[in-house]
């Protein structure tokens, strides 16, 4: 009863006011046949101290990124999250608030979301962003739903170089949308614009990823042009951390930009909660899923912020809504906002450059055959390790180094390939250790 607020005396007085004889009577509308009449099969209630002990015990059975030299990425990255982010997100006025339905009570979170939307638009070169999606996979499904309604078409084109999990989620959602998915195979680690155009013929949208899952730089402007040629919406899945050095999708013709926000301001947290972002050109504003904050004024003409364009949403449009999303990932998105403000334009460029420089160094230092030696990469790249990747990983981990992600898990024929991610948290010495661990 750790969090109970009533005393027995309170309960008695309250039951009297209600006019019932006991707690049981409050449940009289529940048919006898569906009442639960044994104690729940849960443990003894624990005190705070015991809860912490139990959770520390479980946490200690994990090997976290601070306990080994980790080059694991593949969609979730160990970038540094500054202390200000944690601090602000822990402030109760923000942490313990619900969705800002009453704007006068929630100007803080509303303005912050408006700032977040602006930052996402700036990063991606788009006109409108929502307040966040669940993660980098579900925003891809969202983009397809927009495209379906915007184009009246039902084909989804997915480059094979898009993150496998994104592709799986799109495939899971597609049948409900009445859509089909077509894959475009990679050619030497990147997508061929001609093949992409051919596939996109008659498609609602065509999705590629930049940098792609292999870490390679796609010919993104050409891919967008290919989609545009055949009037499929060009959708770019981008890593926010790359957007200080790589061009914004809005600047090379994409209709929609989506991505996993984790790399910008969220901890690894075993895969969640993180935030997905989705931004689009102005014409898609009223097809966007989820919450959007807009600027307005109060009765005295003061600037203020509210949830807006709500006629898109499920609580008004119900079965005709642009999406069913309600709870999103606002807190994590605001982590992203604070992080990106902390970086500023210079910092964003610097973190991108630092990753690139370290990754380039790692490529050389490892002295292993590259998976796609011809391609430019950002912070991640594939190498052949000359044996089963999971075996190499297992062995390297005994040396305190986790070398990366085994690509064979998703791509047949790549059983000897590891995807190595190098963030600004890794050093030249770490890379030496990686080289030694993989050579061992």
């Amino acid at each position, binding site marked *: 009863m750790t969090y109970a607020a009533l005393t027995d005396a309170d309960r008695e007085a309250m039951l009297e006011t209600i006019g019932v004889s006991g707690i049981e009577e409050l449940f009289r509308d529940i048919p006898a046949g569906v009442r639960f009449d044994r104690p729940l099969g849960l443990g003894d209630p624990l005190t705070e101290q015991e809860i912490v002990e139990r959770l520390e015990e479980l946490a200690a059975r994990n090997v976290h990124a601070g306990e080994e030299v980790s080059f694991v990425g593949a969609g979730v990255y160990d970038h540094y999250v500054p202390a200000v982010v944690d601090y602000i997100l822990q402030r109760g006025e923000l942490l313990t608030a619900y969705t800002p339905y009453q704007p006068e009570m929630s100007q803080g979170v509303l303005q912050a979301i408006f700032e977040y939307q602006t930052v996402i638009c700036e990063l991606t070169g788009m006109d409108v962003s929502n307040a966040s999606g669940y993660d980098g996979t579900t925003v891809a499904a969202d983009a397809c739903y927009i495209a379906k309604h915007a184009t009246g078409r039902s084909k989804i084109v997915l480059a094979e170089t898009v993150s496998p999990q994104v592709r799986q989620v799109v495939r899971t959602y597609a049948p409900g949308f009445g859509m089909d998915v077509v894959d475009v195979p990679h050619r030497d680690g990147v997508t061929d614009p001609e093949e992409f155009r051919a596939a996109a013929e008659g498609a609602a949208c065509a999705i590629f990823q930049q940098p792609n899952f292999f870490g390679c730089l796609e010919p993104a402007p050409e891919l967008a042009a290919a989609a545009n040629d055949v009037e499929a919406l060009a959708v770019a899945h981008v890593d926010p951390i790359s957007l200080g050095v790589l061009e914004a999708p809005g600047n090379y013709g994409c209709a929609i930009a989506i991505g996993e926000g984790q790399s910008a301001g969220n901890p690894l947290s075993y895969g969640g909660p993180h935030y997905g972002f989705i931004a689009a050109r102005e014409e898609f504003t009223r097809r966007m899923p989820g919450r959007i904050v807009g600027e307005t004024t109060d009765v005295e003409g003061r600037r203020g912020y509210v949830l807006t364009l709500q006629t898109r949403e499920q609580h008004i449009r119900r079965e005709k809504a642009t999406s069913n999303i309600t709870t999103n990932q606002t807190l994590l998105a*605001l982590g992203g906002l604070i992080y990106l403000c902390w970086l500023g334009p210079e910092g964003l460029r610097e973190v991108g450059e630092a990753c690139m420089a370290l990754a380039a160094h790692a490529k050389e230092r490892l002295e292993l055959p590259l998976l796609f030696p011809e391609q430019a990469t950002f912070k991640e790249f594939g190498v052949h390790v000359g044996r089963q990747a999971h075996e190499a990983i297992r062995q390297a981990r005994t040396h305190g180094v986790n070398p990366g992600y085994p690509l064979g898990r998703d791509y047949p024929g790549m059983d000897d390939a590891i995807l190595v991610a190098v963030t600004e948290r890794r050093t030249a010495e770490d890379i030496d250790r990686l080289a030694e661990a993989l050579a061992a």
Partner: protein
Amino acid sequence: MKLVFERSRPGRRAGRIPRPAELATPAVPDELRRKRPARLPEIPEIELVRHFTKLTTRNFGIDTGFYPLGSCTMKYNPRVNERVAALPGFRDLHPHQDEDGAQGALELMHELQEMLAEVTGLDAVSLQPAAGSQGELTGLMLMRAYFADRGEGGQRRTVVVADTAHGTNPASVTMAGYELRKVATDARGNIDLDDLRSKVDGTTAGLMLTNPSTLGLFDEHIEEVSKLFHEAGALLYYDGANLNAVCGISRPGDMGFDIVHINLHKTFSQPHGGGGPGGGPIAVREHLEPYLPVPAVVRDGNRFRLDYDRPKSIGKVRAFTGPFGVFVRSYAFILAWGRELRAMSEDAVLNANYLLARLKDAYDLPFDRLCMHEFVLSARNLKKEHGITALDVAKRLMDYDFHAPTIYFPLIVPEALMIEPTETETKETLDAFADAMQAIAREAAEEPETLKTAPHNRPVGRLDEVKAAKRAIVRYRFEDHPDLSGEPSAAAEVEAPKGV
């Protein structure tokens, strides 16, 4: 107050990035290189902290005060949950970590699955969905997969949803490719059984129901309802948003539901963070387990692992195994209550009934029954008699330092005020709120203008939502604002004195 962009000055900065000076950055091919940097704000860290600190003080959370937002279960969010979620072994664990380096995380998830199975009275749980509405969609996908597997895929086209349902239910039905059948509510607030019978037939895939409903009422005919669907070969989906009412008291599985989603951010105390994150695990009956998303978290003796080998699975609905940080908090919350969880629901129901008893004379009560964890009043009489709407009541409550209830929902109640106190509020708080609500009812008669112009002491007055939708300004328009960089003096930036 200023936007963060309006605090920016060229050349300022907070964060810096280490870079080994000796390493060269490879050139990015010109056509892929960013030409104009994103206009992120340029501010020192002190300004960053002040800006966001100030923003938070313009926000109201459970930590600020009473937050009776119906259907949202705004209970105390224990601080210890934040402590444990921040343990490096959880916070810094990579989701692609080898299973043997993630045994603690896997065990936690497995145990949470078992806890949720026990509370819902069902057999198997997937923690993957990111929120309630994704849980709904996932549940409907399970229905599709189940019927397809039985060769009834083409036939089962419709899903029945109550007219009191949350908007996510019909929206999920559409997104899952089903057709909606809406069913009415009867005079006692139960599903109208006659109407229901006319909506269920061989095309029915299932029912989506919240129970207790969004009226805060337990459906007295739930057994008949369940029988009706099962006899038609259809499935029952339980929208678990109101689970806080019935933990240890009545289990969805025992009511006859086949699929349940649980909103971890409601019943199990994950803070909602101004919009999210949440968690929407789904629990299902044994025969639906094969269709659950992959990977499943399974136990082999003392080892835990991720099982991808589920040929009938619908696939994945989000990345990895779900919002793990949310699981840590919910798990910690359930440990705190343990087998006494029933007492939590009892107090939640007691608090709601107490408030109801104190308020039912001052406001209209559309369904005069004992309630469960929440109840819905109507301001229709205030409107008729004094022109005071539910919105006015909500705004006026702010002047009394309370967050407003949910209003205008459920849709079948005009001028609805949907009030959910949760179990973590004291009697004094409930009394203070009841007093305020009663005072407002009096004010409606005596000084209606005070209500219509409320709120009066928030950072902003009543905001114009129509204007916002019309103008659709959804990001800062740098172009409409002067370039502050060359601004000569800051005289203009002195905010007007607030006193005098």
